[in-house]
């Protein structure tokens, strides 16, 4: 899994390529947490390059969503691929996460 972080104004975009699963979730949580600890709580997870997520991936997402929201921010997902979307739907995550078709619309969804 590759993780690239980019700042777009007040919003931090974390682009992930690969699978978010039991082997990689800890690294992703680490990246998210580093941002939250640094005060960057408006986060877009760019999932356009994520081909798969397992239960460990879901736990990583939930942990980050909780941490960002506790500090007045949010984790929003962009470009979720069909395979991952089915897992998010099956687990009810589409009810608690905000999903956007691309990075631009996800970034724009945060108040300027």
């Amino acid at each position, binding site marked *: 899994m590759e993780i690239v972080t980019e700042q777009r104004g007040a919003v931090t975009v974390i682009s992930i390529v690969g699978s978010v699963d039991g*082997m990689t979730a800890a690294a992703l949580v680490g990246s998210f947490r580093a941002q939250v600890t640094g005060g960057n709580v408006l986060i877009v997870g760019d999932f356009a390059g994520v081909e798969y997520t*397992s*239960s460990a991936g879901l736990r990583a997402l939930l942990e980050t969503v909780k941490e960002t929201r506790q500090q007045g921010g949010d984790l929003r997902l962009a470009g979720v691929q069909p395979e991952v979307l089915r897992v998010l739907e*099956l687990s009810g995550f589409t009810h608690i996460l905000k999903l956007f078709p691309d990075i631009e619309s996800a970034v724009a969804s945060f108040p300027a």
Partner: protein
Amino acid sequence: MNVGGSGEKGAPRVAVVLGSGSVKCAAALGLLKVLRREGIGIDMIVGCSGGSIYAALIALGHDVDSAEAMTRRLWTKELTSRRNHKSLFSVFLPRLFGFDESFGMVDDALILQRLRATFGGRTLEEARIPLYLTATDFHTGEQVVFESGPIVDAIRASIAIPYIFRPWPVNGRMLVDGFMSDPMPVGVAIRQGANIIVTMGFESPYQHKINSPLRFAFQLSSITSNNLLKSNYAFYNLAHHAEILPILPEFKDRIHLFDTDKIPYVIEEGERAAERQVPYLRRLLAGA
């Protein structure tokens, strides 16, 4: 490398969980093909509703071809062709015909006969792979897990589709379809100590047209069970450390309750969906 199902100390325990989904559950045979081809063993199998039939066949050691042939003989449209007239009359004249908990619109003699022809007197204890089949207690709503006893009884209870087949009495309890308590019983595998849970389950289809009381009832049942599937699945994913790998076959065509002619296609899609998970499954087994 520690391979699941090896039984070696420290090796991960791999569970296969097959949820409800009638004919779509045949996709489990596609999953079985892939696991066997990759040499990945199974430490336990859990089955519910339609998935209970495939779970039992796999656990008893049938290969894909024989399991497919057996289910095509077992599951045909004729199963619902004979009405249970007493039950139907009891809906309109409950006192006269004695409406009670044994309500079911279809005469279940044929399904019983076919289950007996398929599984005979075999028991869950005889399965080569530890087998757990689930049903639901009609009176309490509790999940009931069969770990022993006749396979026919466990499957008959697990597929007691509400309104269609009457609840099935086992050991003094009236049991209905396993999907009523948990359409994809991952929790059973967690409880039995599985580390890696490969699961396959399907949402109940929604009715295209509501033109009969039965379709109305089915629609309500689908709404409830699909929401139950999602909430339970979310809970299992978040509340436990076990890694859960959902195998989600995609069907371009709508698969109806008795579309057994589509079983080869269903198996193919199951195989395709399972193949997508192999690299990760391999990594998990290697890293455990």
